């Protein structure tokens, strides 16, 4: 299935583009000639994106921990570029038992993973800022659906994203905007390696249920490109499973 006719020269915004999944999506879109706006939360990771993609694409740094500042950071770029697609790959992990889920920590996770995503949607879907058929994709997680000990804040933040996508798929249908989530299982990223290093069990128990094994970032990127393209024009408000069988 070729995605090229659909996404060539299309304007796509990727937030969290310096994550392994974000970078993979950016590489795939770059290869087929899409025009990208790539966001990273820190100036250092933005500099890495500039080095890799800066010749052809725009790079922007903005802190998702500060949703009130996002409007100023993105205003210029969003008023001068009409978007065809927006994909959010920002997702900060949280692993702590309930007794350590203090309000400041939970608020921080919810802010970065959910509040700022919603703030981006407010900006991106303003009149005049997008072309007909705008497709929005959020990277979500099996944690949002099945949960697990110690991941309450992370799972809740991703479930909030999925719920928002469902509501907004109905609310924004009149504007011909689609929103979908990709429910990722374990993906072979640096965040995953870090997670495994912090655990005492050497084997990842999730992989016993995720019987197709660890996903590669490109596996997720392929689905993201499908959801961004017109090939998926009849799909909205959905949670697409990219879980290697985990939730089956």
């Amino acid at each position, binding site marked *: 299935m070729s995605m090229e006719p659909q996404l060539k020269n299309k304007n796509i915004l990727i937030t969290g583009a310096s994550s392994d999944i974000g970078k993979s999506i950016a590489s795939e879109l770059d290869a087929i000639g899409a025009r990208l706006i790539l966001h990273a939360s820190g100036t250092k990771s933005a500099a890495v994106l500039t080095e890799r993609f800066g010749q052809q694409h725009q790079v922007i740094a903005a802190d998702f921990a500060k949703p009130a500042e996002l409007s100023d950071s993105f205003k210029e770029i969003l008023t001068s570029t009409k978007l065809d697609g927006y994909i959010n790959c920002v997702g900060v992990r949280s*692993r702590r*038992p309930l*007794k350590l889920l203090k309000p400041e920590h939970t608020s921080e996770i919810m802010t970065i993973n959910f509040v700022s995503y919603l703030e981006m949607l407010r900006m991106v879907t303003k009149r005049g800022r997008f072309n007909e058929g705008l497709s929005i994709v959020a990277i979500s997680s099996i944690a949002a659906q099945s949960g697990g000990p*110690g991941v309450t804040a992370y799972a809740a933040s991703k479930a909030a994203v999925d719920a928002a996508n469902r509501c907004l798929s109905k609310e924004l249908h009149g504007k011909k905007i689609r929103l979908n989530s990709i429910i990722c299982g374990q993906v072979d990223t640096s965040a995953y390696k870090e997670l495994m*290093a*912090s*655990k*005492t*069990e050497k084997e990842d128990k999730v992989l016993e249920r995720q019987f197709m094994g660890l996903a590669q970032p490109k596996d997720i990127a392929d689905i993201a490109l499908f959801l961004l393209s017109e090939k998926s024009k009849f799909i909205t408000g959905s949670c697409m499973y990219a879980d290697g069988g985990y939730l089956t």
Partner: protein
Amino acid sequence: MTKQEKLNLIEESLELDENTLTEETVLDDLVEYDSMGKLSLIVLSDEDFDKKLTGEQMDEFKTVGDIIKFFEA
């Protein structure tokens, strides 16, 4: 921070009564030193001692004193 204060922090993380741990306490003898207990110690190490604690390092801990030595290193 005194050794006793560190012991008390570990007791709090593992949901043990105050002054139940000594440096000689063997971790394998504590039912509270389970996966959530270990996760609590990782957070404690990060937040109160600014030290990243990995699973591999935790495997090497035999006694409560080993944890305190890691915090102090």
